[in-house]
């Protein structure tokens, strides 16, 4: 199953409509968390929000995560060690307050297990790729550096 999440703050209809379309075209089983109580889609299951328990249950059955390029999406994928496809929201289309998701996406380009789709064609290709590499929370040197610095600051 493919789990789509757009976070809790704003709907992201452009991406979900695209996925609704692709679900029919590619016969995909999709569950989408839409942040939009009024949303209606034809080919996917969806809910505006999920409780933490529902979220965990769905994540457990997910093979690939798809999300907006939000940090919550990335960190979830790393935590549950699943591949993640992200599509940045565009402030120019009224999808966010500023273009920070484009910046996040640029930074994530080439990150293991994180795939960036800027358009429908790329999203379709990725959704048809069988063995996407899972993301993971390996302790990177930069992460260890941050934690060590904070530990020293607080306890030092």
């Amino acid at each position, binding site marked *: 199953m493919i789990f789509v999440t757009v*976070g*809790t*703050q704003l709907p992201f209809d452009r991406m979900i409509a695209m996925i609704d379309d692709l679900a029919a075209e590619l016969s995909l089983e999709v569950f989408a968390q839409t942040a939009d109580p009024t949303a209606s889609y034809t080919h996917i299951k969806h809910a505006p929000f999920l*409780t*933490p*328990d529902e979220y*965990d249950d769905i994540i457990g059955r997910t093979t690939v995560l798809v999300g907006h390029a*939000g*940090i*919550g999406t*990335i*960190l*979830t994928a790393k*935590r549950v060690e699943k591949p993640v496809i992200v599509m940045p929201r565009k402030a120019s289309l009224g999808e966010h307050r*500023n*273009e*920070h*998701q484009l*910046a*996040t996406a*640029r*930074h*994530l380009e080439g*990150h293991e297990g994180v795939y960036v789709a800027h358009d429908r064609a790329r999203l379709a290709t990725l959704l048809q790729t069988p063995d996407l590499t899972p993301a993971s929370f390996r302790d*990177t040197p*930069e*992460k*260890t*550096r*941050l*934690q*060590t*610095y*904070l*530990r020293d*600051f*607080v*306890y030092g």
Partner: protein
Amino acid sequence: MTSSSSSRTSPRILAVASAGGHWHQLGQVCAAFDPADVTYVTTLDGLPQKSGFTRFALVQDCNKNAPFKALICTMQMAGVLMRTRPDVVITTGALPGVIALVLGWMIRRRTIWVDSIANAEEASSSGKLAKRFATLWLSQWESVAQAEGGRYEGSLL
């Protein structure tokens, strides 16, 4: 929630983040500390339990467009600070984190702001707000840290 009864030498840490990406990052950041020293504060019931945290408090979520909710959050946060008497307040945002930081600053505690990784080109608006109340202000992006006069000391990504 219960207050910490740790010895005098171990600091009491109050770790604050609203639900979502801020919360995820807070958990990663606080893995640096002794779990027994940390009390968590967030805005969505179920999150601390899911992470297995036993000492936690919940406050009203708020943002700058919701002044009344911010007021509620401030009063709840003041209550949390009185009960937990932290030595250190650490937050990854957003507005509830700023509120905790300001309150901590008012009672002269050490305050730490870790700006979210999501803010890759510019500090978050709450981060900018928190700036003058933070003993330590970190961005997870070197360029943002430089632009804001904060520090870069590593990143969760």
